[in-house]
């Protein structure tokens, strides 16, 4: 009489992963890939902010009256926004093509991860851990240090600007993940840049006070995580007053991060169930 295979194999127990362990294992792929591309990110995290600061902060800034920027020099005004903008720029690299490609033969990362003990939520968390924790840590921190050499910070609290950049990343990344996961055609990926990355970068009060925007565009500013992050970062680097109480900015970023994560979890579970 044939008997059914028993289940006491050690692997079966090992397969009961906590979210943390699952994310850590899935993160291994992103880390391995990063080791092949890290040198390419040096431009984004070191040279690009220097170029921005010289050309816009100092060059354009020489024409701007500090009265228009709340008493701050223009370089002081844009520095915190640049730190947070780099987080958005990084998401443009990490949360668009790599996510879409994960489901396709040419990327394939998610497909091969799916045939292992990892669950879709682990795969999501692994990618988010890379984009929301690792990348801001390795890029925004460097940007913040580089900008310090331009004398744009008024206190050591400026270090908190990096935390604000983490917040921007956490708030936006899961939404981008869900969006790119739901696309069926790579031609649609440009819409993510056109309708998310680009407007968020331009209309979030990074390069000019958000209240200068026409009234009908103000709602776009309010919903942008980059605006909330920049407000917090500017308070940290220059002691500037925030548009809303800091806790409100923070709460918005947290709410966006949590809502986005639940949505992204749902989308990836659907995409990786065949």
């Amino acid at each position: 009489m044939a008997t059914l295979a028993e289940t006491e194999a050690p692997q079966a127990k090992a397969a009961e992963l906590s979210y943390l362990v699952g994310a850590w294992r899935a993160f291994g792929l992103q880390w391995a890939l990063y080791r092949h591309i890290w040198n390419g990110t040096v431009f984004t995290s070191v040279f690009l902010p220097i170029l921005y600061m010289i050309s816009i902060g100092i060059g354009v800034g020489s024409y701007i009256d500090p009265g228009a920027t709340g008493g701050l020099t223009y370089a002081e005004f844009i520095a915190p926004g640049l730190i947070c903008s780099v987080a958005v720029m990084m998401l443009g690299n990490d949360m668009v093509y790599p996510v879409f490609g994960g489901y396709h033969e040419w990327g394939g990362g998610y497909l091969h991860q799916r045939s292992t003990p990892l669950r879709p939520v682990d795969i999501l968390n692994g990618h988010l851990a890379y984009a929301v924790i690792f990348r801001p840590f390795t890029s925004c921190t460097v940007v913040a240090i580089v900008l310090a050499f331009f004398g744009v910070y008024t206190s050591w609290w400026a270090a908190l600007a990096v935390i604000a950049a983490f917040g921007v990343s956490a708030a936006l990344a899961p939404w981008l993940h869900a969006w790119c996961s739901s696309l069926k055609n790579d031609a649609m990926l440009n819409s993510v840049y056109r309708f998310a990355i680009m407007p968020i970068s331009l209309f979030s009060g990074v390069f000019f006070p958000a209240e200068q925007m026409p009234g009908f565009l103000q709602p776009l500013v309010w919903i942008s995580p980059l605006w909330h992050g920049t407000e917090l970062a500017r308070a940290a680097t220059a002691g500037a007053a925030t548009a809303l109480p800091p806790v409100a900015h923070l709460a918005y970023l947290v709410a966006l991060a949590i809502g986005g994560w639940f949505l992204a979890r749902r989308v990836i579970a659907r995409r990786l169930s065949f």
Partner: protein
Amino acid sequence: MSAAASILHSMPIRDEILIRARDLRKSYGEYEAVKGVDFEIKRGEAFGFLGANGAGKSTTMRMIGCVSQPSGGTMEVFGLDPHTDGPAIRSRLGVVPQDNTLDGMLTVVENMTVYAGYFGIKRKQAKAKAAELLEFVQLTARSEDQVSDLSGGMQRRLAIARSLINEPDLVILDEPTTGLDPQARHLVWERLFQLKEQGTSILLTTHYMDEAEQLCDRLVVMDEGLIIASGSPRELIDTHVTKEVVEVRFSGIHTTDLHDIAEKLEGIGAQIEPLPDRILVYTDDADATAIAIEARGIHPTSQLARRATLEDVFLRLTGRALVEDE
């Protein structure tokens, strides 16, 4: 101990059932891809799903691999329920998907060690295991190369090596040699045969009959979501076709004329099948059949007597009409 030998856990226990499916079904909206199939796969055997494109074999494999939830019926894999124990089941499977899903940016060895990480295998152990398996699939010399620089056959071998990193109880291969040149195919077969000989359970889908015949102890033929035949390759041949086939060709004579000639051959052999370019005569005695054909005053340009193959079984069961992809 050789690399391949280390994959072996113990001698196969032939009575132990790894997978049991009853009335297994899968639907996508109105479309029913798998329409209720029953099968059992035992430890140590090489089991094949044979079928044309769209027959439902890959869908069945995805359900076994716990990446697709069945729409109906029951299935147990290693005694576990795929619905609730997917990660536990997948931790004991080795999967070689049809399109490899290797990471082209990573090196050969990185593809192995990163994959090992998903199973919680420690880095040092993963590196040692990767080295063993790369030796097994003859890729040691390319271990530091980027995967995108490898040929299709090498990538396939790497995908097979990767699937063995967790010492799986069962290796699932979806069309393992599709798209490979003959040399690469034979090398893959050789490695799979070695695995099988060492007791690793293998489950594969294929539409290459020679592959199924070479590798499978037992197989099922799927057509339009149903299992239409099952058994060992020899049993299937014995049950569904005769021992031998005589292929009769007539230079310059095609379709309609061949049908006329086929009518004149009625009564010779067990079955006559006219094709566009030749007539197949199924028989248990090819020599006697050749003499009988000549005796009827029919003189073919050429006659080829050969052993009946799984391909004959397959075409007889599923028909010769072209089936479009799903």
